[in-house]
């Protein structure tokens, strides 16, 4: 990696459902090429933060900058252009169950590129090969395993060669081996595509194996406790809760 170059900047973000504040005063920067982990206990608003970052929810205050441009201040057209640079995988894969894997991956290509059907067909096969699903083009999502569904979701997310990849709990519900393979795949994708990765997870193994930047959200104080490299937070965080979370110790009063 060259010198750190900010890619996503979250500035003074406050998230709320109506009058119920989920998290307030979030401030952090994700650099280009980072694998950024959003972590924290259950119900602290990790997924909500991710949904704010992908523009599904409007923040109660603050803004999020992509490559220096504010998503919140952009008009609809500009937002669409920004969104096209993102690839998102959802917790359950988010695949369209009425379409085959090939149709799922082809959909964004048909929507947003001028390519002809034959080229799209080749691209789809290539994307599926990248996630280790070569030959599964004609399968429906319900006919493959959960791990394969997640990888197929990843194939759809990278269909348009995104600059930023968002993952919501990529390894939830996967066995340790599958989730390690998925981690490796994410790492490969980041290296090969040069993409920035933002993921929500509380799999410690994943956090340490691939994360190089992270933010820790606390449900009680409703704000971030610490942010930075998880390896550093493990030993050097000023907050005991963060160290306990990362070392998986219950401590007192937990």
């Amino acid at each position, binding site marked *: 990696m060259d010198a750190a170059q900010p890619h996503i900047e979250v500035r003074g973000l406050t998230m709320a459902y109506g009058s119920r504040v989920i998290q307030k005063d979030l401030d952090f920067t994700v650099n280009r090429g980072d694998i950024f982990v959003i972590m924290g206990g259950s119900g602290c608003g990790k997924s909500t933060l991710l949904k704010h970052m992908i523009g599904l929810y409007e923040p109660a205050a603050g803004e999020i900058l992509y490559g220096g441009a504010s998503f919140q201040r952009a008009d609809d057209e500009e937002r669409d252009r920004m969104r096209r640079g993102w690839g998102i995988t959802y917790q359950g894969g988010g695949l369209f*169950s009425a379409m085959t894997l090939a149709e799922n991956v082809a959909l964004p290509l048909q929507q*947003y590129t001028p390519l002809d059907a034959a080229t799209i067909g080749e*691209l789809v096969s*290539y994307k599926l*090969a990248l996630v280790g699903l070569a*030959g599964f083009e004609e399968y429906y999502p319900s006919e493959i395993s959960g791990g394969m569904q997640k990888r197929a979701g990843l194939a759809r997310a990278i269909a348009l060669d995104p600059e930023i990849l968002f993952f919501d709990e990529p390894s939830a519900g996967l066995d340790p081996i599958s989730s390690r393979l998925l981690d490796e795949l994410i790492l490969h994708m980041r290296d*090969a595509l*040069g993409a920035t990765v933002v993921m929500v997870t509380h799999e410690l193994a994943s956090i340490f194996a691939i994360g190089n930047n992270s933010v820790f959200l606390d449900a009680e104080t409703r704000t971030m406790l610490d942010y930075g490299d998880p390896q550093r937070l493990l030993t050097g965080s000023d907050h005991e809760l963060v160290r306990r979370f990362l070392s998986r110790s219950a401590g007192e009063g937990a």
Partner: protein
Amino acid sequence: MSPAPAADPNPARCAIEARAGGSTLVLSGDWTVARGAPRAADVLPQLRAQPVRELGFDCSALGSWDSLLVMLLLGIEEECARAGIRFDTANLPEGALRLMALARAVRPEQHARPARAPWWRRLLTGEPLLRAWGELLGALAFLGELLIALGKLCLGRANTRARDFLWFVQQAGPAAIGIVTLISVLVGMILAYLGSVQLRQFGAQIYVADLVGIGMVREMAALMTGVIMAGRTGAAYAAQLGTMQTREEIDAIRTLGMSPMEFLVLPRLLALVLVMPLLTLYSGVLGMCGGALVATGMDVSWTQYLHETRLAVNLTHISTGLAKSVVFGLLIALAGCRAGIQCGRSSEAVGKATTRAVVTAIVALIVADAAFNIVYQRLGI
């Protein structure tokens, strides 16, 4: 991934040049999905036309690139491997090489899906018949389990909760009053219009009251309420139970030692069977009001209409309608609950179960209604 695309179009090009030490594929321009680029199929004929022993690359004029370039390289590499050409990757972008390695990591094997036999063979082997038979057995088993649950309920040993029952009564009854009101008044008016046009020719408009009264009470009240309940409550039952099935709630009920029949199906079924006759009565009365609205616009006074209705509608008519409504309620609840309990474990299965519940219920309603009318006709009631 790569530098921002140039503002002016910089089309992707590739050409094979013979250079010292072998052939070189010169790549230039922006190879992005957003603009399109040559494909392997366009380049391969060139490659085959020349006696190439070794293929190198020149990417000095290559602008931004994405998957399209990697795809081309993979295609060419495959061809080179087949034709025995040395594939020199020295000058290729490092990122592209990494992606190629990743794509090659898992060899495509054909994961053939189990082919379905052609329709005529399935027909010959009696597959539809077997399926229908299985369906029938399943329905009978469901009914049997239901009867056992009912028996236990009568003995006071079922784990059906009164609270659930009352909740479903509230959901099926009072919550449906609005739509039943609207539909009943309109159906009454439709019947009245239909009849008055014909009866007026004989100066017999007053008999609109008979037509609407008997038509509503014997037939339309039960049928329309049934259709509304099938769409509203039957579909809701299928969706509720189907969702519970996908979220493993029904498994949890079983493993807690409770019977889903007693715990889930019975309160729903009993609620609907209780509510249907009440709604049918209500619907009949409102239908007559709708009829009266039309009739009073056609030289029939309110009192005349009321008097004629009282002469025409007797207890036999009312009880025939109520008998139907009880059976309809039973059929709707059965169709809804069975579709829900049988539901698969995916989200699309819930949609299918709901559709199935409504279609089954409406078909069953009409068939049962026809059967009732034949029986009534034979019995002369």
